[in-house]
């Protein structure tokens, strides 16, 4: 075998130009596939990062009505949902996939937010517990965090995020300023900012639009104050931070199970149909997958087109191998006369074809990586070089060599030694 590989290299290098031209089809095919796969992978990585946030593997577990998140702006508060106890929260934190968790209530775009008698549009307000900032990766950039005293005393204090700071206070220091929530004055004691390394708060595809594009910012108040501004018995939602991205789904499911223990017998409405209120974890991983599949499916068409180039390359290999067999008729005849078996001749030519296309594949991979880098620079599309794709490409090009080298090799192996020796 090693002998065959050595002979193959010898043969390939003694016809450098011919070998290169033979490989060209394979090189182009593999390079195209590597470039396409890198682009797909790059896009997928970007989708995943945008949706989930690298280093911020948080899962939102919200009370949902069917497929929709329950929104208590208009809906009545259901009476069968218990306040989530400290003990339940402990159990959630003890789930092995969960790093930390926080309970909160929220309202999007309430119409009862004012600053200096000016309505604050499209802000999101959160009533949060002590773990919220830590779980979601916020730091207090200015001022101070909520303290135990604030929670105990139902202190009317608020923390805003940097977006709201920019939007409302326009360069003024917001600390100490008052905003009105439902007519109650809240003193701003701090500004929260996402820790560096944490992506912007995009917890769902919906957030992506509502927050990133239209929101003017976030306001946080201690959860104990929720009843002052809204209704005190509104059910809580939960955000759990998983230990890693791949544990997100499990962390979400297990957390939802614990939270659902707080829902008593399902509420029946007038028609006797139970309104399906339950805690559901939002599987961002799945959402990301769905988006990735969408982008991949368009690109995988391209892979098929690139494969045609491989097919053409394979036919080129077959053609050259046939020429090579004819050229080397005498050599084959001699080898058979000296006692080489069919199998050996077959193996020699198959190895040669496989080595030829494998070299082509390796050159193709290298060119493909180069091509991806060029695409990344010119088209500003993210690319990610995928190691499995490289391995598969090289193996695949070897298979192309074996498949298309088969007919010429069989032809060589079946040459009659006399005809071969007689051949001029």
């Amino acid at each position, binding site marked *: 075998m090693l002998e065959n590989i050595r002979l193959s290299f010898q043969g390939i290098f003694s016809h450098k130009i011919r070998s290169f031209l033979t490989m060209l089809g394979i090189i182009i095919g593999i390079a195209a596939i590597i470039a396409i796969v890198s682009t797909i992978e790059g896009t997928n990585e970007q989708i995943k990062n945008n949706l989930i946030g690298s280093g911020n593997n948080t899962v939102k577990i919200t009370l949902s009505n069917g497929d929709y998140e329950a929104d208590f702006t208009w809906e009545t508060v259901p009476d069968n949902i218990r306040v989530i106890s400290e003990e339940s929260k402990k159990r959630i934190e003890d789930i092995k996939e969960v790093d930390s968790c926080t309970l909160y209530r929220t309202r999007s775009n309430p119409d009862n937010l004012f600053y200096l008698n000016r309505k604050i549009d499209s802000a999101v307000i959160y009533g949060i517990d002590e773990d919220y900032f830590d779980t979601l990766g916020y730091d207090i950039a200015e001022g101070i965090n909520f303290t135990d005293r604030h929670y105990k005393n139902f202190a009317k204090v608020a923390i805003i995020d940097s977006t709201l700071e920019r939007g409302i206070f326009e360069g003024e220091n917001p600390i100490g300023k008052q905003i009105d929530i439902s007519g109650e004055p809240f003193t701003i004691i701090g500004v929260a900012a996402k820790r560096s390394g944490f992506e912007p708060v995009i917890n769902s595809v919906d957030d992506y639009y509502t927050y990133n594009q239209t929101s003017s910012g976030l306001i946080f108040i201690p959860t104990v104050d929720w009843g002052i501004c809204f209704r005190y018995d509104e059910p809580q939602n939960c955000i759990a931070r998983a230990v890693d991205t791949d544990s997100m789904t499990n962390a979400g499911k297990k957390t939802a199970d614990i939270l659902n223990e707080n829902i008593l017998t399902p509420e029946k409405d007038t028609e006797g149909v139970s309104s399906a209120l339950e805690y559901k974890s939002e599987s961002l991983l799945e959402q990301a997958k769905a988006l990735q599949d969408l982008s991949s499916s368009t690109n995988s068409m391209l892979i098929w087109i690139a494969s045609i180039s491989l097919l053409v390359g394979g036919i080129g290999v077959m053609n050259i191998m046939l020429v090579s067999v004819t050229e080397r008729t005498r050599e084959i005849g001699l080898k*058979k006369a*000296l*006692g080489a*078996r069919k199998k050996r001749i077959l193996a020699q030519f198959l190895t040669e074809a496989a080595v030829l296309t494998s070299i082509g594949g390796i050159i193709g991979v290298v060119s493909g990586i180069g091509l991806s880098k060029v695409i990344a620079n010119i088209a500003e599309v993210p690319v990610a070089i995928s190691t499995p794709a490289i391995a598969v490409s090289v193996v695949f090009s070897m298979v192309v060599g074996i498949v298309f080298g088969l007919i010429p090799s069989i032809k060589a192996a079946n040459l009659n030694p006399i005809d071969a020796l007689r051949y001029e």
Partner: protein
Amino acid sequence: MVFELKNIYKDYLQGKEAVPVLKNISLAVEDGEYVAIMGPSGSGKSTLMNIIGCLDKQTKGSFVFDGADIMSCSDKQLSSIRNDKIGFVFQNFNLLPRQTALDNVELPLLYAGVSKRQRREKAKEALRRVGLEDRMNFKPTQLSGGQKQRVAIARAIVNKPKLLLADEPTGALDTRSGEQVMELFKELNDDGVTVVMITHEPEIARCAKRVMYIRDGELHSGEFAAGSRANAVAKEETAPAAEKVQEEAAVTKDIPAEEKPRTGPKTMTDIHRDLDDILNRKLPELKFSDGSDIERKGDKI
């Protein structure tokens, strides 16, 4: 007994018609023999050699090589017989051009599954045997014709075969190299290697202990009486003119005999015609002088 051919026929298909090339050939070769098979071009010498070399199968008749009935052997068995028991020497050397002499000689050992180290060792020994120990790493293009043929002989004997089978081994060589090759064959035969050599040059055939003639696909044993015309022919061209004959042969062998005057030194064509005459007249009991005779006359062959 190395091999025995019994009533061998070989036909080639020319279109739909079967053209007989070998007709009713019987030949038995014992261990240690040195047989030359002579005959004009196209008489079927190579065809016979291919059959003896287990490269081809006869159309009819029985061929037993070293106890094996070749007709019923599989492709695999034939490969291993060729590898193990037969050493081939061809007119045009048939060396792999890109491999060194050593690599070329190793080839049969490779097919026999000998380990790398042993291959090296045995190949070196074989090259030493043919006097090329200082050319082991030369490629065929860097060797003279005679050296190439000696590499080919080293390759043929490296597996210690029962039979050394040579098809016109001196056909592409100058006289001097041809002599060296014949010298080597004689030494190998003295060492016990059975040699079957095909040639159309009488002075080469004379190195053998037994000479057979093939003409139009029929084999005749060369038992000629002394003092006959054939002997005269032989004497004439084994005399000082021998080298000249070879040189002329190279020039004239493609020109039809009829166009040449039958004067001056004998050419190959003349010799063939003479041989043909002898065979056609079926002169009984003609005898070539044997090798020792020639040497006593001071001939260099």
